[in-house]
């Protein structure tokens, strides 16, 4: 059983494009202070950044929880929002329900969820339409920790 060493959680509001992206920077700084392998830091940063973009585009609000255990980095994104009716479709690269306006801002390329999955060692997504979505990503630490 992995031992939880450190945890922190962050609140983020939907449609707050100004602040979207700040949590990934905060976690990056934290992981750098923890002297985690830069390759793992980069993966965790991409996971959180993509999640933040999904939240500001679609959700009302969300909690992002970061955990460090002696075995891995855990990131749980729990949002209150519309939910995803067809998860299989949402996981396909390039599939997106973004509006033209979002696309003009450079978002909604349909790479968010696939990108989170690609950067995770363990990936899980559960969604209830009308309630929200919970995404769990875990990234295994290497020997150095």
């Amino acid at each position, binding site marked *: 059983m992995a031992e939880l060493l450190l945890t922190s959680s962050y609140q983020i509001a939907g449609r707050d494009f100004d602040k979207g992206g700040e949590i990934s920077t905060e976690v990056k700084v934290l992981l750098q*202070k923890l002297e985690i392998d830069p390759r793992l830091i980069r993966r965790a940063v991409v996971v959180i950044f993509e999640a933040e973009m999904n939240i500001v585009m679609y959700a009302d609000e969300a909690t992002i929880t970061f955990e460090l255990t002696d075995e891995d980095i855990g990131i749980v994104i729990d949002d209150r929002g519309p939910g995803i009716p067809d998860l299989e479709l949402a996981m396909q690269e390039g599939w997106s329900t973004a509006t033209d306006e979002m696309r003009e801002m450079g978002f909604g390329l349909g790479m968010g969820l696939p990108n989170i999955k690609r950067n995770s060692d363990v990936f899980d997504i559960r969604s209830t339409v009308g309630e929200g979505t919970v995404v769990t990503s875990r990234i295994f630490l290497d020997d150095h*920790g």
Partner: protein
Amino acid sequence: MAEYEHGFAIDADVCDGCLACMRACPTNAIRVKYGTASVLAELCIDCGSCLTACPHGAITAQTVRLDDFRDFSFRVAIPSPVLFGQFPPDVRPDQVVHGLLAAGFDAVWDYSIELGLISRATVDCIRHWHGQKPLISNMCPVIVELLQVSYPRMLDQLLPIVLPRQIAARQIKQSFSRELGLPPEEIAAIYVTPCQAKTISILRPAGGGRGFVDGAVGIAQMYNTVLAEAQEAAKSGRQTYGWSPVRSAGILRWATPRPLAGRIGRDRYLSVTGLPDVIKVFDDIEKGRLRGIDYLECRACWGGCTHGNLTVDNVYVAAAKLENLISDLPEFDDGGQAEVERRYRREDLTPAQKPEPRPAVHGGDLRERVRRVKDAARIRERLPGLDCGLCGAPSCDVLAEDIAGERGALTDCVFISPQRIEELRHLHHRED
């Protein structure tokens, strides 16, 4: 911990502990204890912000004068293209060459070929690059060090091509040793540099080892002599030199922040100047936010190399003069281009060494590192958050980390320790 050498030194006798350098340092590498500033070598990226900020001249840079190369039999200048934009409009580049010779160089190298060669190689490399994008220019040594210290994972995106001044120096040693019958080590290849950072990177390359360039002399150090001689030549209208060092617009663009303008897709080519902006863009790259960009040109100085700390002219005036010179020139110089093609087929342009990551490491196992981070967070809550700097660290965050890492004490904070205020009062006491 590895030892890092830097090109800047703080003179403890002159330093009065005023905190200006500590506040200017972009990587939080400076602490001021007992009325004297000191540098944490592993964090310093040789940007020179501290030197510019110091009001007392207590920070000095390792400087090199042409005279320091007197032991060489033959001294060849490699003029940074920035040099040619530093003179009044009536002074032509060929007259600047005349000025350099009068100032004591035995020859001035036609640097246009190597710059063309590197432009050619870079465009090719961008086209065939399959790694992470964007590729990042390796021209500015401060940026390379910033990557080593703060963005180690992005070092893979550093342009894998040797610097133009290095191949110029290699070529100089070869051709003059053949022409003069001298051993290559008796021929000095000397870069005429717009900034201290390049001097340092020549003496101590980021990748380790030693390049072909023997040293660098600052533009500011030669300026008066070169200007006087060049103006003299301009007045007499004399044809001073058989060739002009600047025969195409492409060469002078190397003095601007967008040297490859017109050669790669405009919308896929980004140029960022000034360290704070570069840091913002690097953060975006790390998040995967910067999409659709092939090549990123970064310079630590605002406005690019014309703002280097060893230049003379106002950065905006210099940029206008360069624009003016560029507009008078053809895009390509045919003879030069043929030589570029010939050498491109023949020469190996891979760098000898790749800069290695240099992250600040306190070490310890994972639990120890977690303990430090938690301690720092706990300590931080006891600090006022005003970032006054009187403790000798640039911010409350940094002091908290220093304490957790055992290189600071809670009593350094003036809010926690009245004794600290007394110490400071004593140190900075002024007679009325």
